[in-house]
């Protein structure tokens, strides 16, 4: 983007100097002038005064609009005289011009009434047929009607042979007119684009100001290029001023907005000066518009300069390339406007190019680049923010995961601790107390060896049952009951009873804890052991029944039985009841002497 801007600037500055190399047959720059409103060439005895061109009437003949004649002699060789050529003037510099060669009219300008000519001053060309030329001395006479106040007058006249004059004309036309046209077309497009963007994004006023500036400039440039639209004479001065005002004031505001600078006093001054200029233009006659243009040129140059200073001072800390681009464009704008002001004041060559109007596309380009840069920086910032946000989310997710892992670990630790506690309690109540009791019996010498062996065996059985309770049975009651039978197998078979296993298909209770499993197994084990050891039974039956929401496990025998009331609440029976209560159920023991014993465990199914 910077390269393109640089190339554009170089092009705009280099083109004016390019035509110096083209050879011209005659440059008419010395002759005579006589003041006269006559419509045909003046005779030799008219009050001719010597004059040299270019002749800027603002400097040489100030005052009201007037008419006069120039007489410019030149010599031609016979070959030169026999070739057709053209008359070329770098600037269409007067309200009315008529060209005569050797007394014959060859052409003139199409008029200078259009206000656009004030800002872009196209060159002028007229064909010269060879018929009018003669070898030796020739005389060109030019009638000029001009307004001195508008810096009208006559430039040098170049007589070119063949296409030489046209080449000069085309070069100058390309710079002064065609480039202007192209820039205004570009301004029109970018203005429309900015307007479209602004409609989508109303909050961005820089887009609005950009659109206004570009469109106003394109509109100001458009009609003057095509002379089609010629406004009425009385409004030409105010219109010319209003056209400049319409693009220049928004442009200055736009520069402030882009720089992020609020400067209400400056803006107020801008509008005040602009309106004052408009009023001035309105009240002055067409011939007096020179004052308005002076007013405009000076105040605008001052405004540009002030803007440049304000911009540089306000952007001291954050100077990105976009800033330098805008500052560069403004410096060029100041230089171009200063150049045209100098021309206006008559300080530099009368034939100089008019350059000021190039500053608008330059500044618009710089501002457009700034807006685009800002846009992409905003996009990049959003992207960065998104990436950062994603990073933070990921970090949070990791934290949550880590926390979750910690919680799980704590949960596991808690479960382990609970399990350890349970096993400790089991050891304490079951194996521990059995071994302590046994140790007591052995120490006191009361226990006989077979008794010790039996009780040790029971303790081991107890331990195995505790180990079994740790196996994953998924609350399968059939497996849990079956396991008791399996552990009791040797005892059952060596007791010689007829054993009946009437266990139906039982529901699974997955929530059954190892503790509950062990409790159920101990109850059944104890009931079975009693029946096998003490009942002297011939038949022992284990049966189950699911009754609605409760499960019944029965152990019955046909042994000797006992007197329910006569039996002191022994350890065995009482511990059965306690365990059943721990399970949320109960144990019913029915027995009478000689009628066997019936132990029934009832468990609620829903509770587990």
């Amino acid at each position, binding site marked *: 983007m910077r390269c393109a801007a640089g190339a554009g600037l170089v092009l705009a500055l280099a083109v004016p100097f390019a035509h110096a190399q083209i050879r011209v047959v005659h440059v008419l720059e010395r002759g005579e002038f006589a003041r006269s409103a006559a419509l045909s060439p003046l005779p030799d005895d008219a009050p001719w005064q010597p004059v040299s061109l270019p002749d800027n009437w603002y400097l040489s003949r100030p005052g009201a609009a007037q008419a006069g004649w120039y007489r410019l002699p030149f010599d031609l060789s016979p070959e030169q005289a026999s070739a057709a050529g053209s008359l070329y003037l770098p600037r269409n510099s007067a309200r009315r011009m008529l060209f005569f060669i050797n007394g014959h009219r060859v052409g003139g300008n199409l008029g200078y009434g259009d206000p656009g000519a004030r800002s872009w001053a196209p060159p002028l060309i007229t064909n010269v047929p060879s018929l009018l030329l003669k070898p030796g001395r020739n005389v060109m006479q030019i009638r000029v009607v001009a307004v001195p106040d508008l810096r009208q007058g006559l430039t040098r006249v170049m007589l070119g042979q063949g296409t030489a004059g046209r080449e000069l004309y085309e070069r100058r036309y390309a710079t002064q007119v065609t480039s202007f046209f192209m820039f205004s077309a570009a301004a029109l497009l970018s203005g429309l684009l900015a307007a479209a963007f602004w409609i989508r994004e109303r909050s961005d006023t820089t887009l609005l100001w950009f659109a206004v500036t570009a469109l106003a400039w394109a509109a100001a440039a458009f009609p003057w290029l095509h002379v089609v639209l010629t406004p009425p004479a009385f409004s030409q001065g105010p219109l010319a001023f209003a056209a400049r005002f319409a693009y220049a004031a928004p442009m200055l505001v736009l520069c402030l907005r882009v720089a992020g600078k609020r400067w209400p006093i400056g803006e107020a001054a801008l509008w005040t000066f602009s309106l004052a200029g408009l009023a001035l233009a309105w009240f002055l006659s067409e011939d007096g518009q020179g004052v308005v243009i002076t007013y405009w040129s000076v105040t605008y140059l001052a405004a540009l300069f002030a803007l440049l200073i304000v911009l540089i001072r306000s952007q001291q800390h954050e100077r990105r390339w976009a800033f330098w681009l805008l500052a560069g464009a403004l410096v060029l704008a100041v230089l171009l406007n200063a150049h045209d002001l100098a021309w206006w004041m008559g300080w530099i060559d009368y034939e100089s190019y008019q350059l000021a109007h190039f500053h608008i596309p330059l500044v618009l380009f710089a501002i457009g680049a700034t807006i685009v840069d800002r846009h992409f920086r905003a996009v990049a910032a959003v992207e960065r923010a998104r990436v950062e946000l994603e990073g933070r989310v990921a970090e949070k997710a990791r934290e949550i995961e880590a926390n979750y892992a910690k919680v799980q670990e704590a949960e596991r630790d808690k479960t382990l601790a609970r399990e350890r506690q349970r096993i400790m309690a089991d050891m304490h109540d079951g194996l521990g107390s059995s071994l302590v009791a046994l140790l007591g019996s052995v120490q006191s010498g009361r226990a006989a060896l077979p008794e010790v*062996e039996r009780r*040790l*065996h029971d303790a*081991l059985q107890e*331990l*195995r049952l505790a*180990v*079994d309770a740790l*196996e994953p*049975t998924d609350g*399968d009651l*059939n*497996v849990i*009951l*079956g*396991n*008791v*039978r*399996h552990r009791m*197998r*040797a005892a059952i*078979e*060596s007791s010689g009873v007829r054993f009946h*296993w009437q*266990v139906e*298909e039982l529901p699974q209770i997955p929530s059954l804890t190892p503790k509950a499993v062990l409790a159920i197994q101990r109850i059944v084990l104890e009931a079975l052991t009693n029946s096998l050891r003490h009942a002297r039974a011939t038949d022992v039956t284990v049966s189950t029944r699911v009754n609605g929401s409760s499960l019944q496990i029965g152990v019955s025998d046909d042994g000797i039985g006992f007197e329910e009331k006569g039996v002191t609440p022994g350890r065995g029976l009482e511990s059965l009841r306690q365990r059943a209560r721990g399970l949320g159920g109960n144990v019913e023991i029915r027995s009478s002497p000689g009628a066997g014993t019936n132990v029934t465990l009832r468990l609620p199914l829903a509770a587990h």
Partner: protein
Amino acid sequence: MAVTTVALVEDDRDTRARLASSIRAQASLELVAEYATGTEALAGLDSRAPDVLLVDLGLPDISGLEVARFVAERHPDCDILVISIFGDEANVLAALEAGARGYLLKGSLQHDIAFDIQDIRNGGSPLSPIIARQVLKRLQVPQDASARKPDEDETSLTAREGEILNAISRGFSYAETAQMLGISVGTVHTFLKRIYRKLAVHSKTEAVFEASRLGLIR
């Protein structure tokens, strides 16, 4: 009545002595060898094996499971019983997979040991309900028998095998199971032997799968 020859692998001297005396006390049993370590056992059982081998799982040098695997491969007719304190699921299942046919509880009463050995000669020591259930879970019965792939015959249960295991897991004895299913106890034993074989094959294929997964076999 033919005498059953028994060999014993047990590192604890007292336990070994107690088991030995229990075996000697039975006229139908003959103790032919005693080994205190796994390596001794492997050397002694390489060429010939007794009818019944009792192996402790916790040997000082090599695992009793290895001894069981070694003997099961070389002498398929030898019935192997591992000696365990608890007869807990993990150990017994591993023993069954290694080729054992049952287990003997350490600390059993003397006549129980003879009883267990007799059981295994009759077709296998009783499977505990917990282990039967575990075997059922491991060797799934396919939902649709006709969809069964040929190689699954080796490792999955037939419907009848599943029924037998189910009955055992509910606490029924072999005799009761046979009666419920309308077959003889001998048939139950035959089925169980087949189940044990499948369990061993299953553990091997699982080992192969595991090894190839770890990149040990290609």
